[in-house]
């Protein structure tokens, strides 16, 4: 599960590719409010007091030709911001989306710069020392190279 992140997430990212799946798309962008911490479209606890009512509200709103955003706004007005399954793209919520990519970008840049600095330093060292290396050290280096060629 090294990449549990990959396709575990894929399972929730089913796109709304046809008109009939708008209901599914929206009920996966909302949470059940019963406290089960599940996405509305996937909460089917036996006897859940909330999910059936919320799903019905959603069906009615779609039947009334409301747009996606007004429907979501309506749910937020009624149940609070916690009813949305993910942070919005406004206000402080934006930080939630930006931070992971900013951290990844900074870490990636830092790693590349670090490796480049090390490799430049190494090249300079090798050039400076190449002429003076004695056969015994060369033999040790070869041994190290052989020893380090293993593991996964």
């Amino acid at each position, binding site marked *: *599960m*090294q*990449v*549990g*992140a*990959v*396709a*575990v*997430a*894929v*399972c*929730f*990212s*089913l*796109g709304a*590719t*046809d008109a009939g799946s708008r209901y599914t798309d929206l009920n*996966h*962008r909302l*949470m059940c409010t019963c*406290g089960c*911490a*599940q*996405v509305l479209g*996937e*909460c*089917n*606890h*036996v*006897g859940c007091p909330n999910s059936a009512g919320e799903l019905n509200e959603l069906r009615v709103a779609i039947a009334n030709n409301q747009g996606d955003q007004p429907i979501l706004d309506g749910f937020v007005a009624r149940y*609070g911001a*916690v009813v*949305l399954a*993910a*942070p919005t793209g406004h206000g*402080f*919520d934006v930080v*939630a*989306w930006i*931070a*992971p*990519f900013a*951290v*990844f970008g900074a*870490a*990636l840049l830092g*790693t590349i710069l*670090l*490796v*480049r600095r*090390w*490799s430049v330093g*190494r*090249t300079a060292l090798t050039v400076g020392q190449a002429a003076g290396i004695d056969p015994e050290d060369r033999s040790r280096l070869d041994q190290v190279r*052989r020893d*380090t*060629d*293993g*593991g*996964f």
Partner: protein
Amino acid sequence: MAAFGSFALLIALALAAYNLLAGALALRLIATGRQAAISPERLADTARRAGIAGFLAVSAAAFALIWSAFTNDFSITYILEHSNRALPGAYKFATLWSGQEGSLLLWAWLLGTYGFILRLTHKTDVKLYAYAGTILAGVQVFFLSVLCFAAPPFSLYRGAIPDDGNGLNPLLQYPEMVIHPPMLYLGYVGFTVPFAFALGALMMRYPGEKWIKVTRVWTLVTWLFLTFGIFLGMHWAYAVLGWGGYWGWDPVENASFMPWLTGTAFLHSVMMQEKKGMMKSWNVWLIFSTFLLTLLGTLLTRAGLVSSVHAFAQSSIGTWFVVFMGIVLTVCIFTYVLQRSHLRSEHHLESLVSRESSFLFNNLVLLTACFVILWGTLFPVLSEYVVGNKVTVGAPFYNRVAVPIGIFLVLLTGIGPLLPWRAASFRSIRRNFVLPVVAFWVAAIVCLAAGVRPWQDGSLDTGNFYALITFSVAAAVLVAIFGEFWRGATVISKQTGKNIAVSTWLLTRRNTRRYGGYLVHVGVVVVVIGLAGAAFNRNTESELGLHGKMSIGPYTLECTGFTQDSNLNYNSEYALLDVYKDGKKQFQMTPEKRVYLITGQPQTMVAIHSTLSWDLYVVYEGTNPDTGQPIIKAILNPLVGWIWAGLVVLVIGTLLALVPSISPATAVLRVPARTAPTEPAMKGGHL
């Protein structure tokens, strides 16, 4: 039994405290060379023996709690709240970890067990083990203090003792729940051991990298337990919660995943230290972070900091954990600052394109994934603190942020092993990467031909897009890994005259660590293929009367009856569904709904028919109150079986990596004298 259990816990605490204090004093005396009334070696040995005795004491306490569950001793509040007379035996055993106090006792017991094994094997390196044992004792003092003073498992019920207990949470009455928590805890608790070795080695400025070799088995075994525990949890969620999925990005699920990610990063980067003396500080902090994340996971589960489906385990001992985490972090920082000169790298990376840098990027991606999950888990708390508005960070967030990172990680799984150490030449890159790249494009074309279409009606279907990328990358990685096996086996086959299968086995035996690791990567890729299959899930829901029919995928379900059953623990009703494919009856499924007598809580028992292609997953959702008709939900989950199959490969690979390789000497002895000169070239991981 309550008095016996409480007394055993107090004794265990006293012994752990002695182990900590005497051990620390002895190590201090040894380090400074000062004289004392008792020789520091003898003092250290008394500390070690106290640790062993402490294990016996905490085992006695755990036994007392289990015994109380089996004998229905409802005078103990914990047993009253988590068990009842009709509870089956296996679940009575599971009572130990079904609540807050019991699961803390399980933690202390497992820590005691790890400590017991460590102290028995102390002759491997007496001084290093003395440091590790003392640090373990420090952790044990914390958990036993919580058990004795904040969350006592043997507290007595006040008032008239009821005839029967409140019973076990229905969600926990499932076979996996008898195995999942102990496995997860073995993983969580187990990371204390490499943490103790790392901190101990740093404190004593341990020369060389031997401590890493010593802890490698501990770390791998612990990682295996955690992996197995996480997958068991996924299977439990899949089979019990009835929503057709296995991972809901619940904070507590996330909490188990974070130390797994850092532990995996450690397992990779530690090879850099072992082989090239690099990344020493990094590794130390990885293992420190892993241990701290296991504590954070426990904090999240127990303190109610974030809302979770695991709310059954919540309580108010969060402050204890916060303080302890603060102490641990302080000790780690202090020790690191004091001893950081000991952690200077002996080599540096030489090229951006090398095995070393692939490990570095692997670590970068794993830690970014860990950060994303930690960020998503804690953002609701942060948002409430900053703007006073609590938000939910659920699956859609992780979909968008974690998927690209995950795909990059799978890619590295295949690229890393193909790169040579130090630096890669263009020629070697071309030689090693041609086939994987071809496999990538072939898989992409096959997927597109099979109907995986990322672009439909002019818009991007993210599910299909990610599935296409994942399948293609998986194909490339599998070809890359099997290519490694093939190249090595071909050489051995030429030298020994044995066939490819035998040669592959010989190859693997000669470097179990490397090829076991490759098998783990294969397992991961198989798991990922299974996870990506979820992009094509289908579901349907219908009211199904007698002889009513519903169809999903190639299957038609016909209801042939509804029936009821009951036992002392629960009443159940279930549907009898005949399943047809191509007009022929294939099998029968019986989705069930239970109502537990003691608690009155309902619970679904999903019926699942698994094949390698897909799972037919059927839920009996109850009856429509208006029509009185039963409601059946059917879900077709493609490739789910691959997830569990991948786990099996992953476990086999890890176990293989734990087996010592055939040593060069052994290999020579097994070869006839005349052929011996051809062998050495293949020995000892020189491939």
